[in-house]
């Protein structure tokens, strides 16, 4: 049989080893980009886009999101980071590094003529065993470690970030926020909806002057400067329509016979809104938040009533406020009877609402919400780039804390889990008589990439430290008396091995397990490829476009 060019389209096709090598190289290239940002001594990347806007970040997912990646296999890895970001929120860098390392190892095996499916099976088996091992042996129930556990998780997550040198300060904020909003749902599960934490960014002051607010901070100003700037015992009405002069919908015409009626229509137009406002104010509301606009003419009624009105709030914000204060987000005033009404039960309550100046902006802060506690974080920093990166870091830590609260288990960090897994899997591999043994042994080796990278980033001797680490874990798994050695991980500031469980370097177990699963799956996806067909893009021009028509003289 002869191989003929069966594709008649413009395109190119690559097969076999060349495509595998290419995929592997691409994956390793991507991993190399993010590699130096891993760990407590990792550094940041500065990304500049076409317009010249700058992003400084340490977060793997953000870096890969901003990169314009050409190679399809590399794209898989970028998506992998995104997936980890959405599912777990933390550990995005390590997942990419592991996946790339798995691919590299697999490629070596393939060169030794091991069939990819064997490798895939081996990887799957290894992954399953690892997950079991983490769950059975390495994870610690968060409750056993006391109150500091959450703070330690937050600290570990932010230690590699720009706020690393202030981790005590920020871990405090993060944990306080998380504690404030956690609740047990009807099924008895612990929930921690971190999405309800509003993170506001304002440049100025210093990082340490970032603050947590027990309440909701809203990035809006009061509608009129004549309104009070602070209200105690606020009764909040959240409405989702405009308080503007009402008019007929487009296309509706009013035809009048009597000229007198014309004036009546005008009169009515302004009265309708006035009546609406009166309804709201009569219910006892003294704070009115709306997503729509408020006409200047209507502001006076609020001013007269001493109420505080805010217009053009974001709907997202308003929904959260409604939930926190127990208010109903009212879309229309009409009730089932077809009349207009506004029940006092629609109102939410809060201890205080006030407007404060932060930087050059004004914020409205709702304190002491009645229905559910709310928390907001205001981040301060030298410039916008700095605050943006702080936002990402705080978000990652919040995610990590959330995972611990919800899944209640942690594992020691600092390369401890990976080292333990590599020893365990190596032993496991030798117990296996089939061809998968090779793949599992490679998987075990690949695990070591995390401690190695950590050590390299810290500019320490990676060969020596990793060997030491492995020795400890080997002892812990073979000698019964030395079981406690299984918590040993790396101390990167001093370049030593130490008990990371005691040192408080902790990560959510779920994050580790998920990242392992995701990385394996991504590696498998790419491994299965043995043929790549790339079709050149057909010219994009639309034959019916205006420019074409002119050119062809159709116009």
């Amino acid at each position, binding site marked *: 049989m002869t191989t003929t060019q069966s594709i008649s389209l413009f395109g190119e096709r690559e097969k076999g080893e060349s495509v595998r090598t290419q995929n592997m190289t691409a994956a390793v290239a991507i991993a190399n980009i993010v590699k130096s940002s891993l760990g407590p001594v990792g550094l940041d990347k500065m990304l500049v886009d076409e317009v010249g806007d700058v992003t400084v970040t340490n977060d793997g997912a953000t870096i890969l999101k901003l*990169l314009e990646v050409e190679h399809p296999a590399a794209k898989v890895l970028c998506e992998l980071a995104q997936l980890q970001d959405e599912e777990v929120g933390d550990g995005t860098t390590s997942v990419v590094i592991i996946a790339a390392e798995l691919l590299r190892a697999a490629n070596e095996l393939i060169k030794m003529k091991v069939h990819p499916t064997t490798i895939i099976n081996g990887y799957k088996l290894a992954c399953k065993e690892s997950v079991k091992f983490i769950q059975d042996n390495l994870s610690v129930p968060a409750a056993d470690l006391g109150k500091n556990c959450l703070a330690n998780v937050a600290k570990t997550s932010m230690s590699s970030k*720009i706020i690393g040198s202030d981790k005590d300060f920020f871990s405090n904020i993060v944990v306080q926020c998380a504690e404030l909003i956690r609740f047990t749902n009807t099924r008895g599960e612990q929930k921690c909806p971190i999405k309800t934490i509003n993170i506001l960014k304002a440049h100025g002051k210093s990082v340490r002057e970032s603050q947590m607010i027990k309440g909701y901070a809203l990035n809006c100003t009061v509608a009129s400067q004549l309104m009070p700037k602070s209200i105690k015992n606020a009764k909040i009405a959240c409405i989702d329509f405009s308080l503007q002069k009402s008019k007929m919908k487009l296309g509706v015409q009013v035809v009048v016979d009597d*000229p007198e009626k014309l004036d009546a229509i005008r009169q009515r137009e302004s009265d309708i809104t006035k009546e609406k406002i009166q309804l709201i104010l009569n219910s006892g509301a003294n704070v009115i938040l709306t997503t729509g606009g408020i006409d200047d003419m209507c502001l006076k009624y609020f001013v007269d009533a001493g109420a505080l009105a805010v217009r053009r709030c974001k709907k997202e914000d308003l929904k959260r406020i409604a939930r926190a204060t127990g208010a109903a987000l009212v879309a229309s005033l009409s009730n089932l009877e077809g009349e207009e009404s506004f029940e006092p039960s629609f109102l939410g309550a809060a201890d205080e609402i006030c407007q404060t100046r932060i930087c050059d902006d004004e914020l409205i802060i709702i304190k002491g919400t009645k229905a559910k506690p709310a928390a907001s974080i205001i981040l301060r920093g030298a*410039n916008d780039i700095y605050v943006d990166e702080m936002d990402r870091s705080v978000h990652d830590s919040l995610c990590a804390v959330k995972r611990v609260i919800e899944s209640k288990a942690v594992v020691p960090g600092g390369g401890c889990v990976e080292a333990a897994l590599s020893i365990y899997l190596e032993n496991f591999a030798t117990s296996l008589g089939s061809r998968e043994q090779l793949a599992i042994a490679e998987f075990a080796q690949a695990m070591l990439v995390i401690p190695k990278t950590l050590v390299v980033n810290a500019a320490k001797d990676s060969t020596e430290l990793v060997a030491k680490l492995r020795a400890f874990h080997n002892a812990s798994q073979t000698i019964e008396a030395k079981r406690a050695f299984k918590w040993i991980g790396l101390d990167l500031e001093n370049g030593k091995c130490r008990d990371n469980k005691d040192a408080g370097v902790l990560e959510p177990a779920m994050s580790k397990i998920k990242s392992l699963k995701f990385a394996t799956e991504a590696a498998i996806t790419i491994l299965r490829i043995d043929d790549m067909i790339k079709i050149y893009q057909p010219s994009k021009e639309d034959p019916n476009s205006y420019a074409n028509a002119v050119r062809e003289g159709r116009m």
Partner: protein
Amino acid sequence: MQQPMLVLKNNTKRESGRKVQLSNIKAAKTISDIIRTCLGPKAMLKMLMDPMGGIVMTNDGNAILREIQVQHPAAKSMIEISRTQDEEVGDGTTSVIILAGELLKVAEPFLVDNMHPTVIIAAYRQALEDAVSMMRNEVAKPVDTDNREEMVKIIKSSLGTKFMKGWNDLACGIALDAVKCVRINDQSAGGYNEIDIKRYAKVEKVPGGSIEMSEILDGVMFNKDVTHTGMKRRIENPRIVMLDCNLEYKKGESQTNMEFMQETDFRKILQLEENYIKDICDDIIALKPDLVLTEKGVSDLAQHFLLKAGITAVRRLRKSDMNRVARAVGGQIVHRTEELKDSDVGTECGLFEVKKFGDEYFTFLTKCKNPKACTILLRGASKDVLMEVERNLLDAMNVARNVMIDPFLVPGGGAVEAAVAHRLIEKSKEIQGVGQWPYRALAEALRIIPKTLMQNCGVNTIRTMTNLTAKHATTGSTWGVDGETGNIVDMEEFGVWDTLQVKSQVFKTAIETAILLLRIDDIVSGVKKQSDIDAEKMAGKFQAANPQEGPEE
């Protein structure tokens, strides 16, 4: 075996490692060198030309950097910090850049010596904490904000470096009065302290005359004339009605059509329109005001009615002006004339007057009893000069505001930097480990401020600097540089003070920026735009949402 393959897009450029760190430092240094000559009383103005051909003359750090176009991303983030400083405290924009540049410069040798950036950063952070607390606890002194003389002195030291220097007393007086005027200290609302310069202290620039003729009004002023020439142009103790509605017939919002069957109907509708105007004018006249101000228009007919009643009308005021008027004369802005009440009328104004400068008319509402808003009237030779004077005044007002909010002072003229540097160096001796060196380097870097002051007035930097260091080591922490002569003087006697708020903000911003830039080890340019990513995300969501919709239906 294979052709070179592309992992990233073709146009992506990437630099990493030491090279990036050093180039960042270089960029930061370049920026700080640009405005180095703008520090201190011997500072020179810079003339900048924008792409449109307009010119800016200034020695305000932020104003200069705003106009400069830079390529390097690190330089961009340097420029940002001057903006941060401006928005947060409104002063010290030059020193923050100089300091940040110097902090990066002193970090360079450590990087070359293979010290890990995280070590440097940790030391810097620690030093920042120490510096800020030292400044507050050891160097700063409290000030009595009610003491006019002292306040003027403080503002003076801020203006000392600026164009307004020649009119120091005038400018200080204006700035202080303006800030006092707009200050609201509401004890009932839990000590709510508001000083909103941006909204309530308006600077009106009128070219012509001389700078000496600038003044602060005990009321407000705006660039408008009465609507009808027959109206009175000067009223003492006017009763003022403020409206934000039209005094002319306006059609309804809904689309209305009218079909006439007979000619009488047509006349009737015209009559109605006239009656409407008469009605609203009657509503106003019933209150017996002397002056009507509106944000919208006044029709000829309404003018006629008002003129007959002896009322002066001014139309088309800006909303922000109207708010100031309301704060200055008391009273309320009303939208519907039928809702006018006697309490809505502003009565606290002492004099309404229309004056003519050049060929423009200006309306003055002055001699207000208790104005909570004011206008500063600036006169000067040309628009460009006025712009610079305005910037100076804003700086001065910000200084006054900062002192009122946080009444602590630190000695100026580089004294506070020298004092903190001295203390940090002492403290660095107790620090163990490698962190000691960057900590100490940061302390040394603080001395760039007095050093630059000396350079700008042309004295022997090394000798004077040594003297200054010696003074701080032996006697007191208030010794600084007299920016005029370059001599070392005791700021306590010399009377140059800065506010603590500004100085601590300078330290915070500068050090944190240095930290940000030191952490970077990789620059990738030509990445996706944020908007593209959002678009992609939207598209992705849309696709993801669609299959879910299927089964539900």
